[in-house]
């Protein structure tokens, strides 16, 4: 089964960490995590996202496009990146989420990729 790990963290915490330790030191655990996912053969894809303030949110109402400045959900913790992994079941997905470098400070939402083939 494929699961998406949606990574939510406080952007300010991330920027502070980069300031203190430098970009490479901040990135090291993320590189290590991605590598571990790859080595285990479970990585499908994964990308970091730019800060929430760069987001634009689009909706169409009455045929008219509306664009809002900022992310759809405006909270202290922002969606900062994602992984898609392919593992046998939820327990293994949860175990990978637990190892994510953001887990000790932020939140990792684990969502199955919808499968309509058997429906």
């Amino acid at each position, binding site marked *: 089964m494929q699961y998406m790990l949606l990574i939510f963290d406080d952007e300010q915490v991330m920027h502070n960490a980069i300031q203190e330790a430098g970009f490479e030191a901040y990135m090291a655990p993320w590189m290590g995590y991605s590598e571990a996912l790859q080595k285990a053969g479970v990585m499908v894809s994964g990308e970091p996202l730019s800060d929430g303030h760069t987001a634009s949110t689009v909706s169409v109402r009455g045929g008219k496009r509306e664009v809002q400045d900022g992310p759809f959900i405006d909270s202290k913790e922002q969606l900062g990146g994602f992984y898609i992994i392919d593992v046998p*079941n*939820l*327990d293994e997905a949860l175990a990978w989420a637990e190892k994510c470098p953001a887990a000790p400070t932020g939140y990792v939402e684990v969502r199955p990729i919808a499968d309509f083939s058997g429906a």
Partner: protein
Amino acid sequence: MSTDPRAAAEAAAKDSRARLLGLLSRRTGDLTAAEDALSDAFAAALQTWPRTGVPQSPDAWLLTAAKRRHVDEVRKRSSASAGEPELIRILTELSEASAVDDPRLGLLFVCTHPAIDEAIRAPLMLQVVLGAPTSTIAPCWLMTEAAMAQRLVRAKKKIKDAGIPFEKPGEEVWHERLTAVLDAIYAALTIGDQTHGLLDEALYLASLVHRAVPRSAEAKGLVALALQQRALHPDGRPATFLPLKDRNPDDWNNALIERAEGLLRQAAGQRQPGRYQLEAAIGSAHIIGQRDGRDTRAAVIELYRRLLALSPSIGGRCGYAAALLDAGQPKIALAELRSIESAAQAYQPYWATLASIHRALGADAEAAEALERAIALTTDPSVQLFLISIRDQSTKN
């Protein structure tokens, strides 16, 4: 234990149904479909077995009945849904293979998975493992049948759609997951104790875990707790709650009490103390004290101290205060109770215990006020009747 053929048939049918449900859902990952597949066969077994006796292999009987029904179903329909032939194939395979380990344990782990809302775990377990109908479960949690049904459906859908595995959890999370199973059974046990009687169900589930995980001392403690409750209510619960000290030990089931004692001794030998063992030990001290006319009050106080050190809770603190009061130390009891005052405002036993302490200290006005709070907070009619009888007595005096 029972020689009643109807009860024996029902027990065997439930046992077998749960085992097969575990096997089936492990293969398909779909609880609802597995329940559907077995429901008619289970109903047929409940009708047939009391007359014919329990078949030699109950599992094979149920599987064959389930398979026959689904083959008919497929034949009847012009276009069979894609899932049916697959289901028949699995049912056939299962009836050929002999089950080695107990898949019911897997069901318990699924129902109490950390990804399932804690509040629905015990109801889910009762329905999935025991086949308890929603109409029995809902009132125990003070919910309407429709609301409970909706929550159960949602939980089963989550199990399927999120890919929660039907395997035993790995070593690294084993303890935490087993604790969640025991906690859910305890919830069913204490709910049963308060309202409509899920005692037998909780006892069955606790015994199931105990047999499947004999190295768990806490599972033994939980079985002992359930046995004690069963022993004290051999004829079901009375309309008005009666405190232990006012009951007649001649009415109790001594065989069950002794079984609980034996389990507690075994558990103590394992040297893995835990909350349920200590609660059962407290129960044991009360029961044996009352039955044999022994003064066990000091032992109860000591056990509460150990319980609070291991697993502090508002309920434990109230019990400790009541034990201190019982031992003639109302002032210390009051101080203990005051320490949880802000956290326990909506907790009925807090106010009931406070009322008893105030009464012992001669503070009648405070006692009356606390008793009113307790009566207002009680959801269990039998406890409410009991508290009202105390109020009526004290206003007469």
